[in-house]
């Protein structure tokens, strides 16, 4: 930044892989970072994956070390359960109001032993597990979440509904449960802002033809990721709702592409990864991938595709796909390139839905005073220049919040935004 009296501190919104990388890099440059994260944990969507394409590296092994580094970094002020409510000022001198919700668990005293979970009388669907398992009202989203400190979900905790329950407090040996914690309103002064709020997936219920939400064994990509995850609801066992092992699986690409009007760029690759997941656990399984155009750009992806094809995965170019039931059997109907109609019965269907902006993107755009593009992603200032530069000076947009992309490109953008902030030419 220039010689003017700019505030050197930076606000990073979103503690997914892009936000974490950006924060760590800024800290390395001796910048103080306020990292605001909406949920109770770090790692974003990446921690939902068991493995990442195309070298099938364990996702946790990849991201846990940098999550740990983040928690121990003294230049980084991690604010979980926090949301940005107001932003005023301009490049070099922003004033940011943050609402930090109470966790009701003391971050210093708690050691993450999980003793408070069992006695909690409340049980409900775990959102992190896409509703495939249950959690308590005091909980961490999954084993290995970082920081490994539970939160109390006050909407469901019976104490916060007026009952006299103190079960979790009694179970805690470290006096870490504090029902008197209050939400805090913080005011932060920063010079620049990086927006790394990630993405959401297209809700397949909008397209009844795929049977999602209607039939038991139709899964979204994220649901299937959790089904395969060793720390997930089935500890990585791929099972149908009736407890049986699937013998045939269809993976449907491009779900919602027509509706969204763009190619989400990662679905072909992660769908191929799913075939790898399935063949690893269930070598005999019959897999059919239904795609329109195979989009596997980049130097290392085709090799992965060829490897998957060798494992006897049927790659079917198809249109007019429909999932229905014939008697008790689930069937997939489709039209292949030649115009012929086909029908196959399938035990399990996995949908690869389009990537779309996260639900609160438009609200945040308003708060920050930056533009959205026609698809609802944060809009870059110009297609000709750096894609991390938003319509407002000093605010940078990175990762899937700017547009669908893979981990490599998200991280590149995160570091590029840091480059922009540290660069003397900005």
């Amino acid at each position, binding site marked *: 930044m220039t010689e003017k009296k700019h505030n050197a501190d930076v606000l990073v919104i979103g503690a997914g892989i892009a936000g974490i990388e950006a924060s760590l890099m800024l800290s390395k440059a001796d910048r103080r970072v306020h990292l605001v994260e909406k949920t109770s944990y770090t790692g974003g969507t990446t921690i939902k994956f068991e493995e990442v394409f195309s070298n099938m590296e364990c996702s946790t092994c990849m991201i846990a070390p940098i999550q740990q580094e983040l928690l121990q970094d003294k230049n980084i002020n991690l604010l979980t359960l926090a949301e940005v409510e107001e932003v005023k000022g301009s490049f070099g001198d922003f004033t940011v109001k943050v609402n930090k919700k109470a966790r009701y668990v003391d971050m*210093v005293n708690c050691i993450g032993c999980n003793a408070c979970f069992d006695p909690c009388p409340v049980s409900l669907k775990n959102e992190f597990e896409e509703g495939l398992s249950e959690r308590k009202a005091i909980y961490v989203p999954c084993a290995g979440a970082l920081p490994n400190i539970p939160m109390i979900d006050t909407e469901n905790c019976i104490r916060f509904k007026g009952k006299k329950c103190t079960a979790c407090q009694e179970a805690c040996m470290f006096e870490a449960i504090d029902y008197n914690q209050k939400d805090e309103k913080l005011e932060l002064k920063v010079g620049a802002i990086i927006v790394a709020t990630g993405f959401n997936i297209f809700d397949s219920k909008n397209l009844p033809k795929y049977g999602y939400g209607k039939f038991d064994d139709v899964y979204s990509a994220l649901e299937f990721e959790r089904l395969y995850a060793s720390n997930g609801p089935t500890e990585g066992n791929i099972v149908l709702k009736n407890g049986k092992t699937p013998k045939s699986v269809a993976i449907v690409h491009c779900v919602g592409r027509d509706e969204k009007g763009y190619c989400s*760029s990662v679905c072909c690759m992660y769908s191929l990864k799913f075939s790898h997941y399935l063949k690893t656990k269930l070598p005999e399984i019959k897999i059919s991938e239904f795609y329109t155009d*195979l989009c596997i750009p980049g*130097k290392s992806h085709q090799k992965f595709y060829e490897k998957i094809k060798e494992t006897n995965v049927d790659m079917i170019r198809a249109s007019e796909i429909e999932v229905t039931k014939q008697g008790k059997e689930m069937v997939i109907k489709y039209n292949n390139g*030649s115009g012929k109609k086909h029908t196959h019965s399938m035990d399990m269907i996995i949908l690869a839905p389009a990537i779309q902006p996260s639900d609160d993107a438009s609200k945040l755009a308003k708060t920050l005073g930056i533009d959205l593009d026609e698809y609802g992603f944060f809009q870059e200032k110009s297609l000709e220049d750096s894609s991390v530069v938003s319509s407002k000076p000093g605010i940078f947009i990175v990762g899937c919040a700017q547009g669908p992309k893979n981990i*490599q490109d998200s991280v590149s953008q995160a570091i*590029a935004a*840091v480059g922009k902030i540290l660069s*003397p030419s900005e």
Partner: protein
Amino acid sequence: MERKIGVYICECGPNISEKVDIDKVIDAISSIEDISVVEKYKLLCSADGKKFLEEQIKKQGLTHLVVAACSPKEHEKTFMEVCENADINPYLLQLANIREQCAWITEDKDEATKKAIRMIRAAIGRVRYHSPLDKKEIESNPDVLVIGGGIAGIEASLQLANTDRKVYLIEKTSSLGGLVTNFEKNFLGMKPISDTIDKKIQDVKNNKNIKIFTDAEVEEVIGFFGNFEIKLKNSDEEGDPIGFNVGAIVLATGLTLFDPKNSLKYGYGEIDNIITSLEFEKMNKTGKISLKNGKPPKSVAIIHCVGRDEKGYCSEICCMYSLKFARYLKDKIPQVKVSNFYSDLCIPGKTHQKFYEQTKEKNVDLIRFTDVGITKNKDQLNINYKDENGNKKSLLVDMAILSSAVEPATDASKVAEIVGISQDEKSFFAEAHEKINPVSTSTEGIYIVGGAQGPKDISSTLIQSEAAAGKILSSLVPGRKIEPEVKVSHISESFCIGCKTCISVCSYGAITFDEAKKVSVVNEVICRGCGNCVAACPSGAASIKHFKFNQIYQELKEAVK
């Protein structure tokens, strides 16, 4: 000085104490020779616990410390800090992980207690042989060498240069701008590319902190992060070779096209009016698209995926620029019939499909093929293809444009060798980590951007250049010293037999060979302490600090005793 080892056992509330009988552990450990003190504490990582530990070290005059608690991942740093505060070297600490590796996974309390005793004994056995390690600091040079004066190198230079930092921009041709100067428009916004690149070139030229060398090549690079010595092939006015020092290097050597002559079925070089995508860009930029005979083509085929099978990867940008070519053609020759032959349409990202749809609306035929070739038909060309159902078809056109795969620039291998980094199997520069470290290499201080790292469009290239700048700006700060890794390898001069095995297994280029003494020598600044050389050394000459043979041996011996 007499050795005084203190052992502190954390109860971790009930987490360890419920499964491990800590009093039994204390009994078993106390009798060990040179143990000054064994104590338990409720929660050592708490503020009170750390204070207690610090006071104990001072009060007992301890020389070595064993903490039996949780995983080193959780609190090794915490307890190392305690050591520093208590004025003992933090490497004289050993952690025994009796929570994750014992209390949490061992059902039977007796078993867990026995196991904890073994683990603590092992830690004691090890810590006896620990030596203090001291952090080093070395001066660093904040200046940067950028190799390649295309848009990637230019962007990186602009992001890096300021009064505290010089950038040396080396371009092997006579002018800056690289490949994109041949393009009329960028496919994203269909705006003139010269608006962007010309301004950037001007900015680089006007920046007093960027020293540009055109018609220049790097001859030699020696040194390491913070301290590279660079020698160019070029000479100054007095005839002396040009040399300078930098702290980091950015490789932006760009890409080139797969030569369609390598695939005979396209007839390239044999038949007139078959041109490559780059030749077409150049022709289009002159403002006139014409056949060999000077007339404008009435029909043009644009063939995607040329060389894809040979290269073994999708080049990511060809579909989009092929659609751009259709637009060029329709803009300049409105009546021209354009047919794009593609196999899979690869148009990833939020803006691309719209561009595709707009192009289709301009009456461009999109034909999917499973195989394609070109033959001569009088003055015209036959595009012979199989459609997606395997039916043989043919289309007569005046001109064919081959959208060739991209590959690393021809001198990439030479550059990789000079700077000492590796290439992947496709000859692109290899990144330190494909996902989370895409612009770094295994050699610290050397960064890879743009087409040199992999096929990509201008937008992604700019991002990588800015990312490399970010990496450098955050780690190479003027006036700040560099702290190299302390747990590094050491090769004993007297044991080394000069076989050079270690040099071949070192991923970081940290080992050189002393020809005079005929032994391998570790550069401690470059070494990251991975241990490859130690494992590979046939004579036992290589060892790694803090993981010496005896330290590990004593630890294991106690664990299995």
